[in-house]
C-alpha cells in the first residue's frame, strides 16, 4: 500500500504543526519521520491514523483519499510510545482484540494470535496480565497486537523511547526482523538518529512542519541539504563563508562545514591548532581544537593527543559540505 501526502497543513492555535507537507511512501517501505520535538512528526503520524484532522491537504492510501474514513476503518496499526496495552486484558486478549472486532472465527483467531505471539517471543506469557510485564514485554505485546491484524500500514510512534538502552537495541532488531518478514508499508516517528540510520529505507527530516530533506540514510548523512540536517544527524563543525578557515580549506563564497571524524591530523603541512580539550572514547579520541584565529573545531581521531599540544590538521576536499545560504 503506497501512501501519498499532499499539501498537508495543520495548526494548533498559533503554532503550525504541518506546513503544506507533501511526500510519497512506497509500498513495503520502512519510512522514517525524523526531527526534534515540535517538528510535526507525531502530528503527521496521528493524522495518518485518523486522530488528527488536517486543516488542509489530502492523504491517499493506495491512491484513495482516506480523510473521510474514521480511524477504526483505516486498517492501520499504531505502536504507541507508552505501549497502550490494555491493563484489564491478558496478553492473549490484547493481541486478539483487533481480530475480535473484525469477527474472526475462534479457531482462526487462536491460530493467528499464537503465531503473532510466537513472532515476538511472547508465547509463554500469553495468559499474563500487563501489570506483571516489563517495558520490553509490553512493547512486544504491542508489536504482536499490531501485526496480527495484517494492517495496510504500520505506524510506529517513538516505540523505543520509553525503554532502556539494552532493550532498545533488542526491540530495534525485532522491528527490523518483523519488517523484513512482513514487508508492510511502515512509517516510523523518532528523534533518535541511530534508529533512523539503522532501520530506515528512506528518511524525511522535519523541522517546523516542513521537510528539510528526504533521502536514504546515506544520502542524508553524506550530503545533508542544510546545516540543520547536518547538525541533527551526526555532528558538524559549521563555519560562515567569511571564516579564516575558508581560505585554508579553499572554500569560497558559501557556508560550509565538516564532520568531526573527517578531520585528519597531519605530520607536515596542515592548519596549526592547539588542543584545548581531549576526551578518550576508547575506539577514538574526541579533541577540541582551536586555530590561531580562534575557530573551534571538534575532531574525532584514532590516536590520543594531550591538552596543550599543538597539532596540524586538514580536511580533504570531498569531505567538506557546502550549503547554500
Amino acid at each position: 500500500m503506497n501512501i501519498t501526502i499532499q499539501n498537508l497543513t495543520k495548526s494548533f492555535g498559533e503554532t503550525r504543526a504541518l506546513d503544506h507537507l507533501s511526500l510519497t511512501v512506497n509500498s513495503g517501505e520502512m519510512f522514517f519521520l525524523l526531527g526534534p520535538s515540535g517538528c510535526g512528526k507525531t502530528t503527521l503520524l496521528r493524522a495518518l491514523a485518523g486522530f488528527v484532522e488536517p486543516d488542509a491537504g489530502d492523504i491517499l492510501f493506495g491512491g484513495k483519499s482516506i480523510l473521510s474514513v474514521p480511524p477504526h476503518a483505516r486498517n492501520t496499526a499504531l505502536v504507541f510510545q507508552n505501549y497502550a496495552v490494555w491493563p484489564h486484558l491478558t496478553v492473549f486478549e490484547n493481541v486478539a482484540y483487533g481480530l475480535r472486532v473484525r469477527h474472526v472465527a475462534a479457531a482462526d483467531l487462536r491460530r493467528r494470535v499464537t503465531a503473532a505471539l510466537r513472532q515476538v517471543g511472547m508465547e509463554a506469557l500469553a495468559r499474563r496480565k500487563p501489570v506483571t510485564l516489563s517495558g520490553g514485554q509490553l512493547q512486544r505485546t504491542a508489536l504482536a497486537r499490531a501485526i496480527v491484524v495484517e494492517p495496510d500500514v504500520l505506524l510506529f510512534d517513538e516505540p523505543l523511547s520509553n525503554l532502556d538502552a539494552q532493550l532498545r537495541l533488542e526491540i530495534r532488531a525485532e522491528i527490523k526482523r518483523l519488517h523484513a518478514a512482513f514487508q508492510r508499508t511502515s512509517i516510523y516517528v523518532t528523534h533518535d538518529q541511530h534508529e533512523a540510520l539503522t532501520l530506515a529505507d528512506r528518511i524525511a527530516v522535519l523541522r517546523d512542519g516542513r521537510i528539510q530533506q528526504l533521502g536514504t540514510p546515506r544520502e542524508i548523512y553524506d550530503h545533508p541539504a542544510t546545516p540543520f540536517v547536518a547538525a541533527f544527524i551526526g555532528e558538524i563543525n559549521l563555519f560562515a563563508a567569511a571564516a579564516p578557515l575558508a581560505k585554508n580549506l579553499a572554500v569560497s563564497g558559501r557556508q560550509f562545514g565538516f564532520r568531526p571524524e573527517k578531520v585528519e591530523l597531519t605530520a607536515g603541512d596542515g592548519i596549526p591548532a592547539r588542543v584545548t580539550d581531549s576526551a578518550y572514547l576508547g575506539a577514538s579520541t574526541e579533541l577540541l581544537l582551536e586555530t590561531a584565529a580562534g575557530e573551534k573545531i571538534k575532531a574525532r581521531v584514532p590516536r590520543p593527543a594531550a591538552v596543550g599540544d599543538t597539532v596540524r590538521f586538514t580536511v580533504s576536499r570531498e569531505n567538506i559540505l557546502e550549503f547554500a545560504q
Partner: protein
Amino acid sequence: MKKLLPLTVILFFAAFLAYPLCSLLAGAFWVKGEFSLRYFSLIFDNPFYRHCFANSALIAAWSTILSLGLALPLAWLFNRCAFPAKTLLNSLLLLPLILPPFVGAIGLRQFFTRYGTLNLLLEKTGLVSLSDPPDWLGGGGFIGIIALESLHLYPILFLSVQAALANLDPTLREAAANLGARGWRVFRTVTLPLAWPGVFAGASIVFIAAFTDLGVPIMFNFQATVPSQIFNLVAQPDNPMGYALVVVTLLLVSTLFLLGKKTGGGNYAMAMRSGSQALTVTLPRPLALTVSGAVLALVAASVIPHLGVVLQSFSARWFMTALPTEWSGQFYAEVFHLDATTLSIRNSLFYSVCSMLLDLALGLGIAWLLTRGKFKGRALLDTVSMLPLALPGLVLAFAYYVTFSRPGSPLSFLDPRDNPVPLLVIAYAMHRLPYIVRAAVAGFQQVSASLEEASANLGARAWQTFRRVSLPLIAANLVAGSILTFSFAMLDVSNSLILAQEDRFYPITKTIYALMGRITPTAPNIACALGVLALLLLAAALYLAAKLMGQKMGQLFRS
C-alpha cells in the same frame, strides 16, 4: 450521538437547575408585574424573621468555630505526626460526616434532655437535682442543634485542611525554620497563610451547611430558624415570604461560595511543589497512644447521638432511667409489618434506584464530555455539574416545589402535588450528581487516551471501544459512585420532607419525621428502628464503595 449527548445534558440542567432557580428569583423579585424588593423589607421588618435569621446565623457561626477547633489540630496531627492506627482512624473520621444528623437528633435528645440519661446519672452523684435539672440542649434545642451540626460537619473541614497541608511544600517550612523561626511562629507565618484557602473553603461549606440544614432543627421542633420557616411556608405557595427567605439564603450562600472560590483562587501552595516529602514526626510511645486514644474518643463522641438511636430502637421500657430497663426487638418486626413503614421502605428503594440510574447515565455522559469531549464551554459544564454540591438541598427543593406546582408551567406534568415521584427522583439525582461525575472523571483520567486510540486504531467503533476498553477500566469507580448516590438518596432529608406531601409517597426520612410527631407511645421506637435500618444500609453501601475506590474515597467528599 455526538450531538445528542451535549443536548441532553444541556436540557437537563436547563429544566431542573436554571429554570427552577430563575422562577424562584422571579417569584421573589417580580411582584404583580413589576420589580420589587417589598418582600425583603417585609422579612427584615418582621421581628420574628429577624430572630430566625439571628438564630440560624448563630447556629452556623458556632458550628463553624467548633468545627475549626476540632479540625485544625486534627489535620495538623494527621499531617505531621505518626501514631498507632493512623490509617484506620483517618477513615473513621469520615464516619460522622456520613451518618445523618437528622437521625442522630432523636438519640441526642434521649441522652441530654432534662430527664435524659446524663442528668439521671449526675443526679446519682448528687451533682444535679431533678427538681430543676439543667437543660443541656439549651433553649429548646439550640445547643443540641449546634452540637449535632458541629459533630456532623467537622470532617469536611478536616478533609480540606488536611489536603491543604499535604499540598504544602515542606521546604517552605524548612526555609522558615532555617532562618530562625520556631514551631508556632512557622505555623503562624508560613503554614497557616499558605493553607488559608483550604481552611476558608472548608469553613464556608460548614457555615452554609449548618445554616441551611433542615433535618436537625425540625427534629428538635425548633421553629425559629430560617430552614424551619421555609419548610412551614412550602405549604402556602401563595405566601411570597417563603420565596424571599429562600432567596436571601441563596444570596448568602452564593456570596460565601464566591468568596471561597476567590480565596481559593490564589492557591499558591500547589504551584510550587518541590519533590521533597514531609517527614512525619514519630511521637514518643505514651504520647502517640494518647493521641490515638483522643482521636478515637472524638469519633466515639461523634456517634453518641446515633448510639442513642440504636438504644431506643431496642428499648421496650426507658422511662426516668439512665438506660432502658427492658429490651425488645419487636420494633424491628413492626417496621416490616406496618403499612406506613413498609411502604416508605419500598418508596425509598424505588426512588433511590431510579435516581441512581439517572445519575449513572448523566454522570457518565458528563464525565465523558469533560475528559474526552472537544467543545467550547467545558469550564462552564464543569462548574454547572459541581453546582449542586454548593446549592443547599433546601433551596433547590423549595424551588422545585414552587416551580413545578405553579399552574401553567410548561412542565406542570411534574406537579409534586399530583405525583411527586418523578420530581423526587430528579431532585435526588441532581443533588448527588457531583459525586458520580467526580468518580467517573477520576476513572476517565486514569485511563490514558492512548488506550482508547489503540482500540479505534485496531478497528473498533466508538461504542465498541467504550464497551470493551473504557467501561471495564472505569467500572470500579462507576459502581462506587453509584453506591454513594444510592445510599445518600436513601437518607435524603430536604427533598423528601418538602416534595413528598402525601403519606403514600413518603420515603423513609419523611416517615421517620412523621412517626416522631405521632402520639402513639411506640412510634418513636419504630422511627428509631427504621433509622437504624437505614444506617445499616448506609454503612454496608459505604463499606462496599470504599473497598472499590480505595484511598481515593476521601477525594469525593472534598470541597
